[in-house]
């Protein structure tokens, strides 16, 4: 059973780049582990560190002012490889939600299967969030999963977001798909005999 998700208020780490692919999130050379742990330290490895392993000061995760449990990224986040290690790395680095105007399909499923909430906002809202974060690093977002809303705290800027009802229930209860699928084995067996 993993951590349940209901509401989250947090400052953000803004990454206003479009089409961030999973090779950037976690490069292939770090996919050699046989467990799910430890990927967080290599999140955005080649953007975050130079080749000698020193933090690049220009990258937002190395900034002393931008911290938080919500990653905000440009559109088409998570495209490319199906590696779930990308979701593990984001989760492992302490994020609980990712906000973008558009997610790649496989990444979105992988995130949901790991209790990491992908929140789709409009292009306009995304631009507002980037602007607010740039002006004030202590700006907070509030995400309410039961109500399916996201807002910039202290402003009128608020939107509702979509999530499949089943996935919402899984996140809120910490329940997982394997438990469910194993529980319907007899139905699957009947299906096979059709």
């Amino acid at each position, binding site marked *: 059973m993993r951590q349940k998700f209901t509401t989250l208020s947090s400052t953000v780490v803004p990454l*206003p*780049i*479009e*089409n961030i*692919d999973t*090779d*950037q999130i976690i*490069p*292939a*050379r770090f*996919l*050699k*582990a*046989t*467990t*799910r742990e430890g990927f967080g330290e290599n999140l955005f490895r*080649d953007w975050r560190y130079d*080749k000698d392993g020193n933090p690049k000061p220009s990258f937002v995760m190395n900034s002393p002012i931008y911290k938080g449990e919500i990653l905000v990224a*440009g*559109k*088409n986040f998570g*495209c*490319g*490889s*199906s*590696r*779930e*290690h990308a*979701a593990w790395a984001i989760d492992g680095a302490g994020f609980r939600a990712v906000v973008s105007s*558009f*997610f*790649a*399909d*496989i990444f979105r*499923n*992988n995130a949901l*299967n*790991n209790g990491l909430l992908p929140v789709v906002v409009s292009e306009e809202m995304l*631009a507002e969030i980037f602007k607010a974060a740039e002006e004030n690093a202590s700006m907070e977002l509030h995400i309410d999963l039961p109500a399916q809303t996201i807002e910039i705290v202290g402003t009128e800027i608020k939107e509702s977001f979509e999530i*499949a*009802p*089943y*996935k919402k229930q899984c996140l809120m209860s910490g329940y*997982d*798909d*394997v438990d*469910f*699928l*194993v529980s*319907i*084995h007899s*139905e*699957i067996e009947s*299906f*096979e005999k059709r």
Partner: protein
Amino acid sequence: MNTLFDKIWDSHTVRVLDGGSCVLYIDRQYIHEVTSPQAFAGLRKRGIGVFRPAQVTASPDHNIPTKNQHLPIAEPQSAQQVATLEKNCAENGIRIFPIGSERNGIIHVIGPQTGLTQPGMTIVCGDSHTSTHGALGCIAFGIGTSEVEMALASQCILQSKPKSMRINVEGELKPCVCSKDIILYIISKLGTGGGTGYFVEFAGSAIRSLSMEARMTICNMSIEMGARGGMIAPDSTTFDYLRGREFAPKGEEWEKAVERWSKLRSDDDAVFDKEITFDAADIEPMITYGTNPGMGIAVNGEIPSSEGMDSASKISYAKALGYMNFTEGDKMVGKPVDYVFVGSCTNGRIEDLRTFANFVKGRKKAENITAWIVPGSKEVERMAIEEGLRDILEEAGFELRQPGCSACLAMNEDKIPAGKYCVATSNRNFEGRQGPEARTLLAGPLVAAAAAVTGVITDPRTMM
């Protein structure tokens, strides 16, 4: 009035949950060493086994070396992943094609090649290029490791039904235009997110005219425009390809199967959520200039201007060109190249090696080029040797390596050094994909061959 996709999807839906998530039954599951160990660990933690091991097939491919495969894998973590795959398969009674064995290879090459992949099936693998198998008229798509675990545990996954898109390519292709050029062209028009949320059926006379292997290249890269997968309705090309393959039905079963498969096509009145048509005559040999597969142009073209883009896109565009050290308006032809990589699940099949070998025959590899020619499977390697392609390659200064994913994602030793330019027949030109700071230019085997013998980006049509 159903699409081909609807017919296969609906006939594999065990149950639809409130809100639309489907319990989808999976006919074939393919696994490899990188995205499966955590799934098996998950099963062990839950104390459950593999539900239908006979429907699962494994092949180590992602991080295996492409030289000296008879020796133990030198890199300890890669060796451990491969050993873990072998152990998991042995413990669960799963068929595996071990490294060096005659059926080993990139899982998306050997699925069709062995006849395991068949029309009308649902197929998943923890790899986004699972879309390749759709070329045979099945629903095949990449999944994450949690879903690998679901499929192992129940032979099902939970999935929302994607929307449907049909992409027609009509008319006759120009000389020297191959299927890689078609798909790079389509992605350059639709962008890397243009297919997100959709499952694509490729159709039209230009697609119909393609060989089975050429169709695989198209479906392989459907994920690069964000689509869940791509598929092509099975026809006589498909049946001719499959007939006699090891796991294809035999005798009377074969006849019955062909009768069944022949019905697998979209109804004439089927309505797609989106439909797009391209004219085959507009497609030129292609190459990419940026850091995603949508950044492609005709090889004899110029890098587009960012004029008219919104400010967010301009930032990303400038970042991409900065990484490549290219400038808007640059001509691609004549740009220096350091490496040429021919291989991968996109273009590592025998027809690709034939195309490359035919072009370099009687010519010589350029001095400044390091070339890696990597067959997609042991079978492709065997054919290349038997057909004399290896001799042609060696005569021209090239070496045929052993099969694997190799420099497509550089998990093994085949890494492009920082700052170097590589013309690659693979599928992704993301930053660092072929090694930290490596610069990738995606192209088909013909454009790769022209670069390999001239040492610079060259339009192959000027050399025919």
